[in-house]
């Protein structure tokens, strides 16, 4: 007589481990396993594995050309990968079901210069099927209310970056991928934006923010440090300082590079 209820025998250890792994993956907004990306015949992302916990701000740091943007594109699902897997909210990156849950702000402002801020955002809200009421909300969030009627082409570089960020905030996405959103901004605006990132995470959004400015790293919950396509570390700012014995994160990063070179 077969038994259809609770198993009589204890669950084997491997099954327990698998269950724990699955639980971790579900709690992770993003899971990257052994990612490899080849561009122009060169391996630009080399066997990268990491997890990004839901509801956190994760900083993706490293020098220019280290593979930050490529990793972000792979998570968004617009990058052809040579190997490994990228999972977002339990689904393969790029799945149609994920598109409305991800906000992506590219490094260069990708927005219409001959439209006003409000007109451009209305267009994106319409075509992406987000409510029109979102437009004024995101304009206020990026502090562009005074420039809502200004042509984007006539805005300063920092204002244009914020208009670009506003597009990514439409629809209240669960995962925000922001590629160097604070480049060209003055310290006051950078501070305001990082405060905004904190508020978004507090509301439950997951943010992956790339930067090559080390003093922004301290404001992240977790740090991913990349160099030459490899992930050097995945740690908290405090944990990184403690592990390397460095006072600040820039020194910690340099310590890791030296350690990596010595291997």
């Amino acid at each position, binding site marked *: 007589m077969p038994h259809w209820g609770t198993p009589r025998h204890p669950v084997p250890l491997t099954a327990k481990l698998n269950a724990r792994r699955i639980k971790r993956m579900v709690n992770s907004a993003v899971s990257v396993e052994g990612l490899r990306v080849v561009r122009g015949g060169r391996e630009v992302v080399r066997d990268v594995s990491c997890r990004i916990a839901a509801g956190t701000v994760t900083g993706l740091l490293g020098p220019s050309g280290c593979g930050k943007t490529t990793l972000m594109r792979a998570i968004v699902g617009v990058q052809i990968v040579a190997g490994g897997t990228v999972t977002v909210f339990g689904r393969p990156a790029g799945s149609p079901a994920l*598109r409305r849950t*991800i906000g*992506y702000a590219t490094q260069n402002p*990708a927005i219409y210069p*001959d*439209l006003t801020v409000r007109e451009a955002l209305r*267009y994106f809200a*319409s*075509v992406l099927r987000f409510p029109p009421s979102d437009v004024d909300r995101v304009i206020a969030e990026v502090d562009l209310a005074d420039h809502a009627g200004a042509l984007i082409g006539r805005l300063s570089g920092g204002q244009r970056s914020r208009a670009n960020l506003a597009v990514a905030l439409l629809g209240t996405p669960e995962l925000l991928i922001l590629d160097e959103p604070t480049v060209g901004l003055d310290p006051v605006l950078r501070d305001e934006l990082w405060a905004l990132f904190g508020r978004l995470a507090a509301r439950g959004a997951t943010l992956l923010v790339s930067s090559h400015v080390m003093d922004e790293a301290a404001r992240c919950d977790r740090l991913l440090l990349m160099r030459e396509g490899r992930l050097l570390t995945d740690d908290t700012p405090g944990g990184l300082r403690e592990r390397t014995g460095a006072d600040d994160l820039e020194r910690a990063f340099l310590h890791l590079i030296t350690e990596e070179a010595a291997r």
Partner: protein
Amino acid sequence: MPTDIRAEIIKQIRRPAHWLLLAVALVLTLTFAYLIPYLGLSGRTEGPGSARGLDAMLPAEFVGSTVAGTPVFLGALAVIFGVLVAGSEYGWQTWKTVFTQAPSRPRVFAAKVVVTAAGTLLLVVTLLAAGAAASAAVAGLQDAPLDWPSPGELLTGAAAGWLITTMWAMLGVFLSVALRGVALPIGLGLVWLLAVQNLLSAVAAPLLDWIADLQRALPGPNAGSLVAALGAPEGAPGVSALTGAGHATLVLAAYLVGFTLLSGWLLHRRDIT
């Protein structure tokens, strides 16, 4: 789909470059179809331009006179319009933003095609209205009767002008999608329209029979044949009755469909950067 079309229309309406193109088309058409021929009318019965006599400027002939520019200079402006509608998305990298979150590329592209066709329809209707007004003014100045073409002739002329300009605009869309940009597609489109077409018809076709035969399959000569059938003055750039109106319409429609399908396929299949 209606939401995408509405959003695309609003976006394109706000772009000053499109209105500048419309203004240029209007000024060129009125200048070369009415103003210069009228100023040259006084006492001339022979020589260049005599084919464009008073009759070509009167209301009865305004449809042919107005659409006479579509094989060459209005076609060039239509190519630029098509490139700006689609190619600017590459230049500003805005395709990335849209396609990252939008549910389907074909839906976004279909809205572009509809808006491109709406833009060329607006161009043709505006030019015909301006041509009608100019021809009425000429008739008034010359005390000539106001004999207007029949509604059927007017609709046929408008449809032919729309077909030709939309075909050129979709060539612009195709070039911008194929070359993923703005500058090179505009340059190549204009070289084809303003230089290669003329070289083929004026230099190559008289020397080589197979090129003369090939002319019957090319978009420019068929556009010229179609407007010639509608009464466009012979001698206007690109206007020549090389083929019949039916043949020209079919060839132009085939190019229109071909450019549209190829552009849609390329946009769907390829990376956007």
